[in-house]
């Protein structure tokens, strides 16, 4: 077992760190404050290949391993949760399923521009009545000639209005099982922005990651070519779950980065801040809290990196991804809360980055499977 990062990975981390510090950090507060999608940053990330890190070179990507991708999301999240999730949703939730389930034509048409960053990707599974319970899906797709006709809506979609290519899940059939229960058969589709009948609903006003464009997607007799079916008909649930396994590693990396970023700022702050004639870092409560946070973050990092390694080497990595996301997300929430506490009143003021980080951390416990879902997945594998 090797805990040493390769020289390549060390250098990649340096790259992501430099980029995050120079290009992303200066905009993080404004991105949050104005709830503006950081388009210029995305264009810079496109230039340097950050939008296709784990996509093979033959499809326009960088051909790197999942660990490199994870380190990118982590370093971005250290300074800006919004920027991190833009990359994560695009890469894990849109590039990945096309890479795994797409036909060669679909890969050439959709994956290549996505991996090059010329197009931005999104993923639409969640509906008002179908969050954790994917069987609650209402969006339907009906084959009519050479086209599927989509009707329904998706909500809380990351990269919502900014994306160009969407992976959309819809019910294509309802069957009755042996026990007489009806079961929805779900399929996955690639939908392009601009397709007639595909419109956007309201922009969500969020607690955190406020620069990410979170929208409702509305499909009204939206006709998409038959060849945009992703994978086999009826394979949608499997595609969604497999895609989310990868997505959870991305979100785990985001959570890890948020926690690390908050701790770094808090260490600096507590060394500077003086109370009772000495820095608050010299108070035992502060130093013990910092020790606890650093230890917890290190444990999260090992789980996240192990999940990335599992994605590289194993066909199924559901449990590894669930453990990484569960632990990293809860670490991010606990650490950022404590960091705000150690900042005292200043931590509650929006000028201080930890305030934003605490708000950004919360979503990591919710999206791409809540912490409760992760516990279901982990225990489900153990109690089979």
């Amino acid at each position, binding site marked *: 077992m090797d805990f040493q990062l390769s020289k390549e990975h060390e250098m990649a981390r340096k*790259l992501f760190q430099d980029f995050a510090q120079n290009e992303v950090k200066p905009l993080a507060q404004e991105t949050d404050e104005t709830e503006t999608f950081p388009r210029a940053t995305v264009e810079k990330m496109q230039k340097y*290949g950050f939008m296709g890190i784990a996509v093979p070179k033959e499809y326009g990507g960088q051909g790197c391993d999942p660990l490199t991708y994870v380190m990118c999301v982590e370093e971005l999240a250290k300074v800006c949760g919004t920027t991190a999730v833009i990359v994560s949703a695009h890469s894990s939730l849109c590039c990945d399923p096309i890479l795994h389930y797409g036909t060669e034509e679909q890969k050439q048409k959709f994956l290549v521009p996505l991996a090059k960053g010329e197009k931005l990707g999104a993923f639409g599974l969640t509906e008002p009545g179908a969050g954790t319970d994917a069987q609650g899906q209402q969006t339907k797709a009906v084959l009519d000639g050479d086209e599927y006709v989509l009707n329904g809506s998706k909500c809380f979609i990351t990269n919502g209005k900014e994306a160009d290519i969407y992976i959309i899940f819809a019910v294509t059939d309802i069957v009755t099982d042996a026990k007489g229960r009806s079961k929805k058969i779900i399929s996955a589709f690639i939908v392009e922005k601009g397709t007639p009948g595909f419109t956007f609903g309201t922009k969500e006003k969020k607690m955190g990651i406020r620069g990410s464009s979170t929208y409702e997607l509305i499909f009204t007799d939206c006709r998409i070519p038959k060849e945009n079916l992703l994978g086999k008909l009826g394979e949608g649930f499997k595609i969604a779950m497999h895609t989310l396994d990868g997505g959870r590693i991305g979100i785990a990396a985001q959570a890890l980065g948020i926690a690390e970023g908050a701790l770094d700022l808090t260490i600096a702050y507590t060394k500077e801040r003086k109370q009772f004639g000495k820095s608050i870092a010299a108070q035992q409560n502060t130093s013990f809290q910092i020790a606890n946070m650093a230890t917890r973050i290190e444990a999260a990092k090992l789980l996240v990196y192990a999940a990335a390694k599992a994605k590289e080497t194993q066909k199924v990595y559901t449990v590894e991804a669930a453990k990484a996301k569960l632990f990293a997300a809860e670490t991010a929430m606990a650490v950022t809360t404590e960091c705000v506490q150690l900042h005292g009143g200043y931590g509650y003021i929006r000028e201080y980055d930890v305030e934003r980080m605490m708000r950004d951390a919360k979503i990591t416990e919710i999206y791409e499977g809540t912490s409760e879902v992760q516990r279901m997945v982990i225990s489900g594998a153990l109690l089979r």
Partner: protein
Amino acid sequence: MKIVVCVKQVPDTAGEVKFKPDGSLDRAAMETIMNHDDKAGLEAALRLKEQYGAEITVVTMGLPKAEDVLREAMAMGADKAILVTDRVLGGADTWATSTTLAGAIRNLEYDLIITGRQAIDGDTAQVGPQLSEHLGIPVISYAQKIEVEGDSVVVERQYEDRYHVVRAKMPCLITALAELNEPRYMTPGGIFDAYKKEITVWGRADLKDVDDSNIGLAGSPTKIAKASDKVRKGAGTKVDNLGAAEAADYIVNTLKEKFVI
């Protein structure tokens, strides 16, 4: 076009500076980066490559760990890399360094050599011009803009309040300013590719037409008498209750007393 870019691994000035007992920098003990001016020189070469097509070879003299800057250069887009490293080359001043680099570059074909203006650890700005003298080619220093016209380069050479436009026939040498451009980042895929490439390692024996008396610490005319970390300034003297004219007199007199003016 064949371009040779000289780069130097220098201490990251954001970190702590450490010295060896002989007064030279303890490079092995410090965080390092690619020298800023050199990186701008590399970026200039990469842009010429994009514009006109070129093969870029990066050359560095240094410790074995200077390999890192060569990998970085290749991850940015350089094609080949040469590390000149040998115990006998250690402790070199600008003369010994330029002699050594010239000995290495004599083995290469080149139309253009680009170096940084100066390195942030020595600030001498001598190695580039010296290198051109050793090789017997023209030098244009302090380049703020570089263009290629036929078999010549047209360079804006920066002065304090103006610039000169200088044309030189290739082969020639240009020293680049950090202000020349904004160097690109590496790409993730470029990093992994860079580690798959070979780095050519040359030692003393590979240097062409170089005399032993001109290399390493022994071949360096410059001897460091003393080196120290940044001198911490004292608290200073605060003088209150003076009018503007009196205050000005006080400042001027104090500066005179200290032989500053």
